[in-house]
């Protein structure tokens, strides 16, 4: 398995674990408190460990770069659609309901949704493209 595949798989597992934990904590701590589950995303900081290479090992080549470029393009489209179409739409709708007042707790949600959408779509695209190409 290529290093980029391992990273994508690791990111997907972290994202899924964060989502499951968030859903599990919501009945106990409420929507706002359960967002602490997203702290699991901090684990993504460990991904540089996958870039360690053994002596003489070729880490990345033109196929890997082509896959990453395609995944990034696809991820950009997904994030843009979700972030602009959904998250910012929700933000302006809330502002419409309460003119001039948007709850402070909404702001981290906007970031998490955008970041989460990027992480999941990018990782899923990488894993799919490695199977196809």
């Amino acid at each position, binding site marked *: 398995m290529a290093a980029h595949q391992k990273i994508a798989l690791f990111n997907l597992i972290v994202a899924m674990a964060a989502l499951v934990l968030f859903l599990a904590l919501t009945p106990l701590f409420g929507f706002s408190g359960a967002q602490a589950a997203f702290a699991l995303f901090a684990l993504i900081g460990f991904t540089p460990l996958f870039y360690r290479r053994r002596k003489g090992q070729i880490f990345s080549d033109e*196929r890997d770069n082509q896959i990453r470029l395609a995944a990034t393009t696809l991820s950009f489209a997904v994030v843009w659609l979700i972030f602009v179409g959904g998250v910012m739409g929700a933000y302006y709708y809330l502002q419409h309901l309460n003119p001039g007042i948007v709850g402070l707790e909404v702001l981290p949600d906007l970031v998490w949704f955008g970041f989460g959408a990027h992480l999941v779509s990018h990782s899923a695209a990488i894993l799919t493209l490695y199977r196809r190409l």
Partner: protein
Amino acid sequence: MKTPSLRNQIRRLRFEHNEMTQQMLAERAGVTRQTIIAIESGKYAPSLLLAFHIAEAFNKPIEQVFQYE
């Protein structure tokens, strides 16, 4: 209309070269083993530069390794 494809003789040439492993060819061509697997199975079409590197690893002209059909 038939879609053009890039055929290759990598598998045959590897066996003709003392059963060269995919890993050995990958190291000579400067790519990962996964890329050699993808090229060999026809899933991935290499760049011209990589195609030349692979041909060089077999000491053959490029047209004896890759065929455009």
